[in-house]
């Protein structure tokens, strides 16, 4: 290995909190060679982001960094902002996870790129603008002349991330730090963005430090990987070795956390939920309507899971709400033999206990002012008013036990629980009412992979124990493959393809499904194909249409 251009020694980060100092990074060593791609992998809370924030002088106000981070021999830790500003944005640049909020919403994107050019490369306004257009073209944003004056909200998530990349490349950096750059994007867009970064890396010869939780990406993209946990390095080595012969249990656990296996097929049974030609239309001004869901039909039997998969904006969550009569829809939904479409809230109430829902965000879905016991028991006060308080409490504790939580936790408040535990609480709140069907809207998408695996196992066990029917919505094909009997692929409010899980994944009938599957399971092949011919726009991009 040549001499590293970035060399971190015994870096420690701590945050002052009301409960005393919290150490987020506990002494990390890291070397990055010129032109190298290094992945820093870890679950949430591992300190992987704070490590680089500290090196770049971007810690929150209550954070302090100790130790050393040298860029080409210059110590960055403790460097005054004025000197640090000569390095960051010019020699070391960053792409962040949140394409929605990382750009200034009040400034045209071209101006934001030009600003860094004027500050670091001292270009004139005109030269900076010309270079900005070139950069937008380099990151393959269509119509760059026009896009320079676009505001962030006028661009899609993928387009914004391209703008961020253009900004990162503007001053020809030595090091690009990519902090979960594709986590918020759809899989097909993710494949495109990664292909773009990989291609630019070979053309411009910069080093890349890739911070991610996604091992798929690591394998497809990086040469070396560092596994972090609780602010420490667990294991470090080249990608091939770590994937084939991991030394640490933790690494093995991460590798095994990818969802796998398939659900045993449910025995045939008469359907309990039947949707015919469901449509949801939103008015979008001037009398125009947007068909968020258009002519979708579906049946659901006890013990069965229908997986609904699609990218953002495909209408899958809207369909879920329409199935439960949570928003006005056309068409007909029958629960057992009762048509429930169009029932008023009062008329709907007798059926609510049988049709429950679990939401994506375990932080927003639980009232912060109620104890966990109260949250789980609340539905019983409506649906089983004949029960006494003691009986309700007992049932809540039983439901908590069923999702693997100690009944003593019933007195605590949601903020005392981790994301995975909160999602268990949300599931307990649904099953305490003894539902016949559960609609699960991205129930594991906000969780770490290892936690996701446990929650999926719990859901499968509950289904087997109570013969529950699931509508399982996810953007993650690996999850859908592991849990569903049948799969519906949605795009733009319509069903593109549906069928038994094995058939969809082994022999997808439509091009769109093939793209999704390739982008989700075969990232390496896509990147390899793109890199050998970077100008060929792969079929995935025709779908994404960024």
């Amino acid at each position, binding site marked *: 290995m040549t001499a590293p251009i970035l060399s971190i020694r015994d870096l420690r980060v701590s945050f002052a909190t009301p409960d005393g100092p919290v150490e987020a990074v506990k002494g990390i060593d890291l070397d990055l060679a010129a032109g190298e791609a290094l992945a820093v992998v870890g679950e949430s809370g591992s300190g992987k982001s704070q490590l680089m924030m500290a090196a770049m002088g971007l810690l*929150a106000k209550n954070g302090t960094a100790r130790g050393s981070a040298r860029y080409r021999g210059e110590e960055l830790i403790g460097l005054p902002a004025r000197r640090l500003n000569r390095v*960051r944005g010019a020699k070391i640049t960053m792409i962040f996870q949140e394409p929605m909020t*990382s750009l*200034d919403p009040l*400034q045209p994107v071209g101006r934001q790129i030009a*600003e860094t050019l004027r*500050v670091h490369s001292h270009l004139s306004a005109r030269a900076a603008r010309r270079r900005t257009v070139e950069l937008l073209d380099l990151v393959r944003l269509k119509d760059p002349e026009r896009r320079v004056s676009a505001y962030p909200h006028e661009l899609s998530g993928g387009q914004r991330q391209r703008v961020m990349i253009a900004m990162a490349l503007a001053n020809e950096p030595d090091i690009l730090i990519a902090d979960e750059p594709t986590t918020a994007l759809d899989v097909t867009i993710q494949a495109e963005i990664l292909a773009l970064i990989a291609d630019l890396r070979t053309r411009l010869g910069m080093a890349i430090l890739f911070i991610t939780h996604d091992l798929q990406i690591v394998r497809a993209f990086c040469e070396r990987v560092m596994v972090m946990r609780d602010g420490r390095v667990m294991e470090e080595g080249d990608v091939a070795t770590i994937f084939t012969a991991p030394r640490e249990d933790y690494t093995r656990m991460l590798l095994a956390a990818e969802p796998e296996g398939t659900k045993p097929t449910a025995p045939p049974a008469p359907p309990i939920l039947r949707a015919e030609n469901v449509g949801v239309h939103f008015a979008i001004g001037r009398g125009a309507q947007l068909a968020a869901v258009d002519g979708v039909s579906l049946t659901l039997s006890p013990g069965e899971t229908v997986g609904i998969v699609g990218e953002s904006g495909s209408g899958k969550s809207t369909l879920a709400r329409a199935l439960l009569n949570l928003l006005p829809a056309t068409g007909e939904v029958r629960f057992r033999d009762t048509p429930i479409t169009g029932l008023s809230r009062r008329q709907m109430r007798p059926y609510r206990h049988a049709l429950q829902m679990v939401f994506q965000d375990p932080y927003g879905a639980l009232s912060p002012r109620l104890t966990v016991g109260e949250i789980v028991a609340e539905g019983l006060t409506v649906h089983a008013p004949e029960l006494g308080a003691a009986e309700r409490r007992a049932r809540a504790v039983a439901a908590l036990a069923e999702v693997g939580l100690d009944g003593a936790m019933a007195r605590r408040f949601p903020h005392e629980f981790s994301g995975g535990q909160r999602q268990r609480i949300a599931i307990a709140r649904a099953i305490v009412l003894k539902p016949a069907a559960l609609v699960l809207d991205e129930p594991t998408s906000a969780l770490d992979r290892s936690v996701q695996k446990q929650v999926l196992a719990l859901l499968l066990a509950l289904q087997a124990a109570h013969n529950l029917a699931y509508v399982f919505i996810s953007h993650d094909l690996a999850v859908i493959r592991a849990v569903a009997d049948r799969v519906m692929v949605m795009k733009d409010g319509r069903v593109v393809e549906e069928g038994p899980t094995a058939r969809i994944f082994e022999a997808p009938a439509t091009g769109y499904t093939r793209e999704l599957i390739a982008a989700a399971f075969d990232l390496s092949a896509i990147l390899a194909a793109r890199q050998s011919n970077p100008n060929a726009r792969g079929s995935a991009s025709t779908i994404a249409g960024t």
Partner: protein
Amino acid sequence: MLGYALRRLAGAVPTIFVVITAAFFLMRIAPGGPFDQERTLEGQVMENLNAAFGLSDPLWRQYLTYLGNLLQGDMGPSFIYRDFTVGTLLKAGLPVSVTLGSLALLLAFLVGGALGVVAALRQNSAVDHLVVTVATFGITVPNFVVAPVLSLVFGVWLDVLPAGGWQTGHLAPMVLPVVTLALPQVAVVARLIRGAMLEALTSDHVRTARAYGLPARLVVGVHALRAALLPVVSYLGPAAAALLTGSVVVESIFGIPGIGRYFVQGALNRDYTLVMGTVVVVAVFIVVFNLVVDLLYAVIDPRVRYD
């Protein structure tokens, strides 16, 4: 945007109509009338006066007559300031009140804005605590306390500024009333900017600006401050309304010939037409000002579209 502005103005017509109607009948519910004095007038004189000013008509007819005249731009004669129409009085008073109000608004935004930004940049420092304390003080102390105190200190004891009065075109008499009127708004604006700025400074896009090595003047002055201005711009509407109410007190105490004064005197004297005229002018002003604020908002924030 023009279409939006016109539609908003058309939408304001019912609002103003409701305001006029409510004010008209509320005024009449109040006991007494414009010609009640300590020494009661003779019955015949009273009747003549009432007849001359149309007060002997049934109330509904008076109401309709008033609306009709108003539509033609006639706000009627003042009952108390004989020989003056309400239109003349307001025309004389309005420029004074508008000068007073806009200077106070300007002062509030400049001083309040500067204080708020400094406090946010030095969060939890002595400067920050000082600003927050002074701001709380500014909000809690009412202007009918501030006005006489300022007048006493600077006008009488120190004798550096006029204690009251107004001379169009002269700056010195404006200082104390403008400061008095601006003070609570300085406090509110400082607190608003401080909060918005603290939020903006920790936002993702400001982190991006820092990560890209932009100098502090760009990070704070362009990226953070512009975002922090948005809530303050939306406060402009309520601020203008607050200034109008404040001017009633301030104009009375400093003896300024603005329209705020007419509000108080008109109400006390049961000068029906004068109060009505003031109400109409103030209501129209607030509606138009809020429209301007909303349009301004769209100029600053490209995400806001009116069509």
